[in-house]
C-alpha cells in the first residue's frame, strides 16, 4: 500500500528524530506504531500526513506509483486523526461531515455513519459545536469520520486517548472491520490495543525503525520489552 525508503525526519537537521527508516504498510492490515515517549511516533505521523515537512526520503511509493506526502493524489487516499484535535470548534459533527464529503468528493454511507455514531454513543452530540464537546467526544468526531470515509489508508495517533471503556472496545471492533477497505497505521501506548487489532508492529527506538509480525497469542508486553532491549 505504502512504501517509504530511507526516511529521515528532523527538527534540526544535525539531530534527526528518525534516521534512514524504511516504512512499509501492506494492504488491508492494521499496523501498530510503538515507541517510548519522545521516540518520534507523532513526528512520523505528522510527516506522513504532510504536516511536518522537514524530512527526506529516497523513495515514496503508493501502490507502486511515486508520490509525495503533500501530493493531493496521496492526500485524497488517506485521512489522519491526530492525538489532540481542537479544529473547527464552531462546527458541529454534521457540518464537519458535510465538509469532509466536499473535500473528499464522496457521499458517506449514512447507514455506516449511523452505526459508528451509535457504537461510539455519540448520538446526542451530533449537532453540538465541537468546542463545547469533551476531549473524548471531540476525538470521536474525527474517528467516526475517519472510518466513515473508508479510505485506503487511515492514520491514527493515539486513538484511545480520551475514550471511555465502551468506546475503546468499539474502536477495536471497527479497526478490525476496517481492514476490508484499507490499511490502518495506529500509534498506541496501550498494549491491549496492539494485541487486539494489529497484524504488524513498527517499533521506533532511538530513531531506528524495525518491523515485527504479530502472531496469534503473542504476549505483546513481553515482546515489546524484549524489542526495546534489543534496540538498546
Amino acid at each position, binding site marked *: 500500500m505504502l512504501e517509504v525508503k530511507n526516511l529521515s525526519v528532523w527538527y534540526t537537521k544535525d539531530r534527526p528524530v528518525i534516521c534512514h527508516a524504511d516504512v512499509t504498510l501492506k494492504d488491508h492490515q492494521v499496523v501498530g506504531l510503538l515507541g517510548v515517549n519522545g521516540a518520534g511516533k507523532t513526528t512520523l505521523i505528522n510527516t506522513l500526513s504532510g504536516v511536518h515537512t522537514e524530512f527526506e526520503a529516497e523513495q515514496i511509493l503508493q501502490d507502486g506509483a511515486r508520490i509525495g506526502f503533500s501530493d493531493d493524489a496521496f492526500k485524497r487516499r488517506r485521512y489522519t486523526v491526530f492525538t489532540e484535535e481542537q479544529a473547527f470548534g*464552531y462546527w458541529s459533527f454534521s457540518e464537519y461531515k458535510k465538509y469532509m464529503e466536499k473535500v*473528499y468528493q464522496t457521499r458517506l454511507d449514512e447507514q455506516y455513519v449511523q452505526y459508528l455514531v451509535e457504537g461510539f454513543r455519540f448520538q446526542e452530540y451530533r449537532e453540538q459545536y465541537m*468546542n463545547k464537546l469533551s476531549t473524548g467526544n471531540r476525538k470521536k468526531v474525527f474517528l467516526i469520520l475517519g472510518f466513515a470515509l473508508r479510505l485506503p489508508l487511515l492514520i491514527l495517533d493515539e486513538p484511545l486517548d480520551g475514550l471511555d471503556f465502551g468506546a475503546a472496545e468499539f474502536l477495536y471492533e471497527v479497526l478490525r472491520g476496517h481492514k476490508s477497505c484499507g490499511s490502518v497505521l495506529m500509534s498506541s501506548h496501550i498494549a491491549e490495543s496492539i494485541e487486539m487489532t494489529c497484524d504488524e508492529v513498527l517499533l521506533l527506538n532511538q530513531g531506528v525503525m524495525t518491523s515485527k509480525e504479530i502472531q496469534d497469542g503473542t504476549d505483546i508486553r513481553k515482546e515489546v520489552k524484549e524489542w526495546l532491549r534489543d534496540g538498546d
Partner: protein
Amino acid sequence: MATKVFLRDFMTPKKIRNYLIAVVVFGGLIFSLSGGGESFVLSDSAGGMIGIGIAFTSTAYVIYTYSTWDKIRLYVALPIGKWKLLGGYFLALWLCTLLQRMSFVILVLAVFGKHVWENVCLLLLSSGAAVLINIGILLGRNAKRRGLVFANVALLLLLLALQLPCFAFREKLLFSVSAGLAAAALWIPCRETDLILRHQPGKTACRNRRIVNYFLRTMLAEKIYMVNTVCIFAFLIVLCIAGRSNPIMWNVAWCVGAVNTPLLTMLSADVWTSRQIVMLPGRNNNLYAQYAVFLGGYFVLVNLALVLGRYLIVGEAGISDFLMAAILAAVETGAAVFMEKNGRITGWQTKQELWKNPRKYVLPLIIFALVSVRYLLRL
C-alpha cells in the same frame, strides 16, 4: 514561583533580549531625533494617563485571550495558594507590560516630558493599578458578579479622572496607590470561585447556526474580533472627521481598515484548523475560499464606509472613489489570504503577540503605496 509560571507563558529569554535591543535602538533614535530642542513637550499629567491607558488596553487583550486557555486550569490545580497565584499572575502581567510597553513610554517621557521622575513614578504606579483593575474585571465576570465588574470599571474611570492636571503630583501618586489597593480589595469577594483565572468563552456561538461561512461564525462568536472591528470603524470615523481635506489623513484612513490584525490572522491563531487544512486534500478544500469571501466582505464594508464618510464630510465622492474602494478591497483580500496561506505566523505564545507580529504592517504599507500613487497621479 507563581510569577515564573505565568512569565514563561508570556516571555522567553530570546524575546526579552529582543525587547531590550528594541528599547536601546528606540532610545537612540528618539534622542537623536529630538536634537535637544523643546519642540514638543508632554504635559504633566501625561505619565499617569498614558500608564493607565496603555496598561489597561494591552493587558485586557492578554487577559481575555490567555485566560481561555486550558492550561490555566492546570495552574489553578497547582499546590499554590489562590492569593499567591493571583499575585503571581498580576506581577507577570505587570512585568510584561513594563518591558513591552512602558519601557518605550518611559523613554518618550524622558525625552519629551518636563518632570521626568514624577511622570515615570506615576506611570509605574498607575499602570500597576490598571492591571489590578483589569484582573478584577475578569474575576468579577468569572464569579458572575456584575456589581464587582461595575465597581472595577468605576474605579478605572475615577483613576483616569484623578490624573487630570488640576491635581498635584503627590495627590495623583496617592490616588494611584489607593486605586491599586482598592482594586486588590475588590478581588476578595471572588476568592472562593474555582474559576479564579479562567474566563469562560461566551455561549453566544449556538445562535449563529444559519451562518455558513466558518470565519464569519467565529467572528460573531468571539467578542474580541467584534470589539476590534467596531474600534476600527470608530477610528475611521474619527480620521474622516479629522482628515477633511488633508490627503495624507485620507491615505492613512484607507490603511486603517487593513490593520484589523485579529481578522487577518484568524488561521494563524487557530493552529488546529490550520493543521487540518494542510492535512486534508487541497483541490476541493474551500476553506481558503471561505476566508477570502469573509475578508472580502469586511474590506468592501470598510472601504465603502470610508467613501461614504468622504461624501458626508468633504462632500466629494465620485465613481473613481468607488472604483478605488473596490480595487483596494480586492488587493487587500488577495494579499491577506496569500499571507495566511504562505506565511502563517507560528511560534507565538499569546494572541497579543500574534497580533503584534510585524507582518501586520505589510498590508497597510501596500495600501498606502497604492493610494499614494493615485494621489500623485492626480497632482
